[in-house]
């Protein structure tokens, strides 16, 4: 059995001995000239802006942005600055929080 396999492998390995050379089509030269004249001599397998690549790039940018936005760490310094700003605004525009009692204390007591 193993000898059969070895023989078969040798047969396959020698199957390209004395193979004839493959020939191009008779129109090879004329199509080559056409291509050269058309200036289409650049290889066509580089990076290209095909829709698939463009969408993939946009998708990648979108996911990266969302990820960064959701995972943005808020520092203690940022928090205290925000509180300070709010306080300044409140002071400047007299936006003190007023409870119903402070607004009309007599009415409030009457209801109670």
């Amino acid at each position, binding site marked *: 059995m193993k000898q059969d396999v070895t023989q078969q492998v040798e047969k*396959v390995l020698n199957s390209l001995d004395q*193979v004839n*050379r*493959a020939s191009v089509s008779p129109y*090879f030269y004329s199509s080559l000239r056409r291509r*050269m004249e058309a200036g289409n001599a650049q*290889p066509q397998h580089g990076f290209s802006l095909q829709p*698939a690549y463009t969408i993939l790039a946009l998708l990648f940018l979108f996911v990266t942005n969302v990820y960064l936005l959701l995972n943005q760490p808020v520092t203690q310094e940022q928090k205290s600055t925000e509180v300070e700003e709010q306080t300044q605004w409140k002071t400047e525009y007299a936006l003190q929080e007023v409870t119903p009692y402070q607004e009309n204390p007599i009415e409030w007591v009457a209801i109670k």
Partner: protein
Amino acid sequence: MVSQDELDLIERLKRGEESAFRSLVEQYQDLVYNTALGVVQNESDAEDVAQEVFIQVFRSIGTFKSEAKLSTWIYRITTTRALDLLRARKSKKRFGLLKRLWETEEESPVENISDFNHPGVSLERKEEAAQLITAIAQLPENQKVAFVLHKLEGLSYLEIAEVMGNTLPAVESLMHRARLNLRKILEKKISAP
């Protein structure tokens, strides 16, 4: 050693004579096509590679120094271009799923590599040759190039060394490893039920 005819042809090519370019293409077109076909294993891709090779020869003949034979230089360009195409094909496969959504029928490769039959193989050896060609496709790049140049183009190990810019012992070792790998691949395939 470069012959006088070859030196004349190179000079005429450097002067940009169209008749010289035509005679260069006629002289080397089958060499280029057959080598490319052995590596890329697809007839239209091989023709595309062959065209690119002649365009590159036309553009860079000015830089060619007649120290090496013209055929050695052309073999080198051919194998490089053919391997470039294989790499591009591999990266295309990675994006294949996404690309298939936008590709039209004409753009997608119609021929299947595993179905490839070399046109120069005789009818009685066709089946075995197809098995060998499929196995060659699985070899690493250097081994593939060396094996194709030896088997399909009949180049000696010394000529292969010149084309690949290697030493003779390096090519001998490359061919030895190529045979070992091919044996392994074929044994596995043949003994499988």
